């Protein structure tokens, strides 16, 4: 098996900008700049910089809500983090897996292939011959970032600067939660296992399996996946892009409605594409789990607006979820006209094209604090991340310029419809759907009446 399966493209894209240099000299420079000690890690990602980078990531989901200079600064900060030296990465493997990478693995590539936000990914081959991707966390990063998260006052002013139109309090909570999750690779591995098991046997969705015995709180080993990066996929014919987009859409809403979980990071860097609509989903560092009670109002909103054409029911569902104050002095038609943009792609049947323009419009509407609804609207804590990621999903699909009958695909997935397959990918999904057991947490009764 060729270790180069995933290529170095992603790393290069995220690598620190190295001044005028090419080839071997560039590699030399990368080695020269590498993080060599835990102190280097603390200097580079401590003193608030790791926290700022996370703010940058969150901000990438609220496109229009962030001040442009802040966007530039946060983007630049991302560039400023060099990879770990081979020795430092190896030391983490020793600490976590008990021996040097060369002993733990049959083959180990000391050059990272990808930069993860708080670690980096190495290729390796296990003792029993499996090609794997090993994500290694920067040593000391957890301590450095946790200390910085304690400075709420400073974070508050940073957020006010970066995203002046956002609700700072909920952003802080989100940030703390998000960082806590990302630092805990055990949780990430659990989430990846959950998704891998759920989509096991799926014809177009692929989730790399976790190698349990080589995964710890600071190291995650998973199957090495192959495929084209987002930028390369964008050069494919539109039919291929449409298929890939459909798979991303199916993945997102199958997991939301049936797994009651939403995988975060609908980020271009977290997919690998193969022709025919096959997509591998990487990085389960941010997964939001919902209870059925939390999911119920969302389902009711879709159902009342898109299926039953019941504006008052929609409004009641919004109020029930806490999106809209009960008794707000604002007409239901106005509520509908404001909110329907978010459902535009699924209100009616027929092919629709996702565009960047549409995703920006949605994002702008989302942060539009001047709308008549703004004074009475809010986003309850448990939905914050969902909303943001929703925007991320729209922006990914928009970048792909994807066309599909999203409504009919949704009808397959909506639990209150469960329509038969409407596309070839839907047909292909049927056997998987039939064999899959229902993994939904059973507690609060049926999802919909």
């Amino acid at each position, binding site marked *: 098996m060729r270790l180069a399966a995933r290529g170095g493209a992603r790393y290069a894209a995220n690598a*620190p*900008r*190295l*001044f*005028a240099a090419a080839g071997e000299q560039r590699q030399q*420079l990368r080695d*020269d*700049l590498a993080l060599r000690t835990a102190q280097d890690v603390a*200097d580079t990602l*401590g*003193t*608030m*910089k790791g926290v*700022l980078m996370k703010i940058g990531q969150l901000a990438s989901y609220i496109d229009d809500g962030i*001040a*442009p*200079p*802040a966007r*530039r*600064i*946060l983007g*630049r*900060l991302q*560039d*400023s983090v060099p990879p770990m030296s081979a020795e430092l990465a190896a030391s983490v493997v020793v600490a976590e897996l008990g021996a040097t990478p060369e002993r733990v693995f049959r083959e180990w590539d000391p050059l990272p292939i990808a930069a993860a936000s708080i670690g980096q990914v190495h290729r390796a081959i296990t003792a029993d011959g499996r090609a794997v991707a090993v994500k290694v966390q920067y040593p000391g990063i957890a301590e450095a970032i946790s*200390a*910085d998260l304690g*400075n709420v*006052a*400073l974070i508050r*002013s*940073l957020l*006010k*600067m970066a995203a*002046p139109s956002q609700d700072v309090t909920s952003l802080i909570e989100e940030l703390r939660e998000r960082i806590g999750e990302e630092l805990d690779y055990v949780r990430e591995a659990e989430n990846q296992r959950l998704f891998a098991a759920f989509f096991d046997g799926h014809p177009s969705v692929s989730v790399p399996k976790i190698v349990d015995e080589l995964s710890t709180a600071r190291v995650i080993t998973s199957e090495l996946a192959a495929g084209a990066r987002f930028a390369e996929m964008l050069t494919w014919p539109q039919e291929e892009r449409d298929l890939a987009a459909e798979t991303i859409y199916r993945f997102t809403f199958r997991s939301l409605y049936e797994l009651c979980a939403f995988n975060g990071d609908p980020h271009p860097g977290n997919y690998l594409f193969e022709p025919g609509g096959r997509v591998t989903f990487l990085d389960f560092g941010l997964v939001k789990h919902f209870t059925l009670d939390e999911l119920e109002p969302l389902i009711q909103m879709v159902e009342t607006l898109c299926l039953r054409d019941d504006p008052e029911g929609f409004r009641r569902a919004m109020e029930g979820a806490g999106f809209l104050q009960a008794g707000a002095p604002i007409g239901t038609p106005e509520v509908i006209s404001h909110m329907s943009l978010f459902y535009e792609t699924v209100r009616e049947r027929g092919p629709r094209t996702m565009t960047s323009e549409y995703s920006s419009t949605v994002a702008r509407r989302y942060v539009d604090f001047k709308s008549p609804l703004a004074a009475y609207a809010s986003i309850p804590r448990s939905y914050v991340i969902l909303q943001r990621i929703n925007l991320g999903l729209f922006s990914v699909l928009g970048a792909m310029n994807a066309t599909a009958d999203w409504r009919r695909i949704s009808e397959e997935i909506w639990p209150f419809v469960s329509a038969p397959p409407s596309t070839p990918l839907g047909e292909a999904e049927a056997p998987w759907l039939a064999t899959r057991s229902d993994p939904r947490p059973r507690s609060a009764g049926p999802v919909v009446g």
Partner: protein
Amino acid sequence: MTAEVYPGTPLFQRAAAAFAACVPVNPADDGFFGPASVTWRLQADLSAPVSGLRSLLLQALHPLAMAGVDQHSQWRDDPGDRFATTSAYVLTVTYGDRAAARAAAARVRRLHEHVKGVDPVTGRPYAAGDPALLIWVHAALVESGLAAAALYGAPLTPAEQDQYVAEMTAAAELIGIPAAPFAAGGAPASVAELDAYFEAVRPDLATSTSTADTAAYLLGMPDVEPELAEAWEVLAAAAVTSLPGWARDMYGFGDARAANTGPVPGSEPPSRTEVRQVLGVLDAVYLGEPGVLEARQRITVRMRQAGQ
């Protein structure tokens, strides 16, 4: 919020542009310090902004230095420009090759020729090129680097501190301080000589309305955007906390002899962690300016190749 009120501020932009320009891409030589020096390390330390602010506060305590600045510089009209010019000078002397450092020093010496007059407070005449005044400014800068690093940066060992003071005599000579032992009128070349210098110079120091105005201006920093004002307060408190007790006494910044006293009497000094967090944020803003990351990488690569 618009771009105009964001910390794409003149202060940051100009300081950053100076930094990017003063760290050479193809230096002819390692300059007067070189990548293995303590000077390079300290100049790149996170604590450098505290050091800079502290040295300005300290330098203002010499009436003749204060008078020279007051009577010959419009720094208050355009503090961003003044900071950028000063930091460009320090950076060129530190990281530039010898020719660049000499040229920068020659420019400053030429400017100094015209800076002379009579201090209205003490009635004493002054000249910016006077070695005694140059030593004062130099010593305040050097001692501030050590003090800020000790409290908020990567602290130096006693041997490294001595080495830094000794290395910096090269900068002293460039600006016109005699290349002589400290005892013979040269710049202090060790921590002990630096301490002795401050003991000896203290009778010459004094405060005036001008000093108080300057300190109030620096610590209040009216040009800092409201969003950065809180961060600047922490920085200002750190600079004051790091001042020697006698200097704080002169300014009336809290009781220097009481343990754990902040700049305002009775206040808590900022913690090392808090100061470093603020410095990290400022550093991130700085890194966001064009050319800064590349310049920093140039420095890091050379330092690492030199074994640091």
